[in-house]
């Protein structure tokens, strides 16, 4: 029984069957990649995990509890953090403030009205944020405007913000899309380090095979909304069905 269980999930947009009969099980403390050609339904599937979409059929359970019908913030409070394709950070705030927000969310829950004390006097929050910045190797940027950072740094900050919540499941949506080679390699190293150092499950949606084969322990190949195969990276590499899905019948 995996930490994330997807059973018979289907989703239709008008005439388009985006997902059909998706079954998937992500094991605790593993790195599970979901790959597939464009339009295979990878992002649709991910959106079903985080409360952005509700599938027409099937069930999605996290740690035995259904996530369907819950809002994104409720699902996050259950222990699922999501990293977006384009980094979603608080661009108008400083890097330090960015890092404090998820820690507040972890300590205080979805809402807490605390209008009088000074935010910098919340010592536990400040310390945890400082520590996380050091872990992320960003301590020198703590007073920077988040929007002024490079794309790679924004990605690093976003991952750091997700990790600061100590989630049980980290979802990554094409974390290296649009990145330069050096930034991509840095991100891979960062994710490897996270995997080695923490008890965390990572589910990653990716286009870039280099990233997938450097990180994943299990791979599910999705094509036209249904899983083709699920196997280890070594077996996936030479799988005829995968070649077919990616390169077309003739190849």
């Amino acid at each position, binding site marked *: 029984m995996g930490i994330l269980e997807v059973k018979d999930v289907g989703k239709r947009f008008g005439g388009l069957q985006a997902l059909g009969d998706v079954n998937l099980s992500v094991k605790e403390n593993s790195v599970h990649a979901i790959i597939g050609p464009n339009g295979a339904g990878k992002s649709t599937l991910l959106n079903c995990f*985080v409360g952005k979409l509700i599938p027409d059929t099937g069930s999605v359970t996290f740690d035995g509890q259904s996530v369907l019908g819950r*809002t*994104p*913030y409720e699902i*996050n*409070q259950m222990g699922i*953090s*999501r990293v*977006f394709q384009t980094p*979603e*950070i*608080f*661009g*108008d*705030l*400083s890097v330090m*403030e960015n890092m*404090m*927000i*998820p820690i*507040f*969310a*972890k300590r*205080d*829950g*979805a*809402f*807490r*009205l*605390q*209008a*009088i*004390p*000074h*935010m*910098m*006097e*919340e010592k536990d*929050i400040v310390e945890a944020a400082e520590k996380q910045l050091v872990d992320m190797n960003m301590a020198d940027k703590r*007073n*920077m*405007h988040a929007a002024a950072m490079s794309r790679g740094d924004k990605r690093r900050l976003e991952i750091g*913000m997700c990790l600061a*919540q100590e989630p049980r499941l980290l979802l990554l949506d094409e974390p290296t899309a649009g990145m330069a080679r050096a930034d991509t390699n840095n991100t891979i190293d960062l994710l490897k380090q996270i995997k080695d150092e923490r008890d965390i499950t990572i589910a990653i949606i990716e286009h870039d095979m280099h990233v997938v084969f450097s990180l994943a322990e299990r791979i599910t190949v999705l094509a036209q909304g249904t899983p083709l195969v699920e196997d280890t990276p070594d077996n996936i590499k030479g799988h005829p069905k995968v070649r077919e899905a990616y390169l077309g019948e003739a190849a």
Partner: protein
Amino acid sequence: MFGLEKKDWNLLLFVAALVALAPFILNPFPENSAMAQFNAGYPDLMQRFVIFGIFAIGFNILFGLTGYLSFGHAAFLGVGSYAAIWMMKLLTMNVIPAIILSVIVAGIFSVLVGYVTLRRSGIYFSILTLAFAQMSYSLAYSVLTPITGGETGLQPKVSDPRILDGAIADGTIPKANLFGLEMGASFDLSIAGWVFTFNAGYYIAAIVMLASFYLAIRIFRSPFGLMMRAVKSNQQRMNYTGLNTKPYTLAAFVISGMYAGLAGGLMVAMDTQAGPERMFWTASGEVVLMTILGGAGTLIGPVLGAGVIKYMENILSKINSDILHGWFAFMPDGMEDFTVAILYPFIGKGWHLTLGILFMLVVIFLPGGLVEGGQRIRALFGRGKAEDKPSTEPAE
């Protein structure tokens, strides 16, 4: 001190000094000089400065921090006014219960309005708040006449019950007071040609304004303030970070509605009447202008904006063509008439035109409002100092 950083403490002291010395600062010209019409140091106007300052500080907590642009905040001011005047009619002419009730009633009303309007964001939110305010205006103007006095509004009458107050002497009208100290009580100080007026009502309103300003600083620097700025920056990230944005925005809405109610209550305390025109959409638009003109999202900006607009409304609008002719009398006749003809549309009733031009200039050249203008001037003079210590801290 008092939970403030040094920088914020200095700002609070600066504002306190400004309001305490306002009777001097606003009366720079001797009483009988030609420039005396630019003096703004009379009680009525000074009271308006601080009251609209409170209104704008509160509006800025919603608009400046969360980015939700309410176009109906005058409704809360109006509701606060009606609550205050009813307190005076029924209970006592003492201003304390009136002001407290105005804050509570405006708070309750803003919970209801906010709960409905905050289901949408952006322009839809603005339109919904505008609709609510106009509905409130119409209700006050006609439907609810028994409660609001309709078009004529409400004033305290000799025949009102005022159950806590003793009977007043015949032929006098009930006056708002603070434990016997009348709001209209003034003390004139004459030095050489200058006359400075110290008014009880003004100082009471000023103390309330300083308290509101202090509270606003605390809110800006609190975890709640951080969350509101995060709402403005990226709601998506908020939701995916386990934070429910709705109660945060509703709390900001209610706090700013209560500030508006406080301003409305103080208006009644200073000038004991309330009418529906206070809720008209232009009144809601005015506070938006004040906040943007001064600098949305800054602490002192809304106070400055309120001051500038109220100054123009009261001083610029009093200049008439005779005064203009007096100023330009030194010119040859034809040129004098020409100059006056050019300037005339911008004064008197045309002061809105001047305000419009000023507003456009500020928005185009100083998007951060007057506060940004001040920062640029400071940067010009303090350049040497700034280079010694480069700072990467984001502007707050």
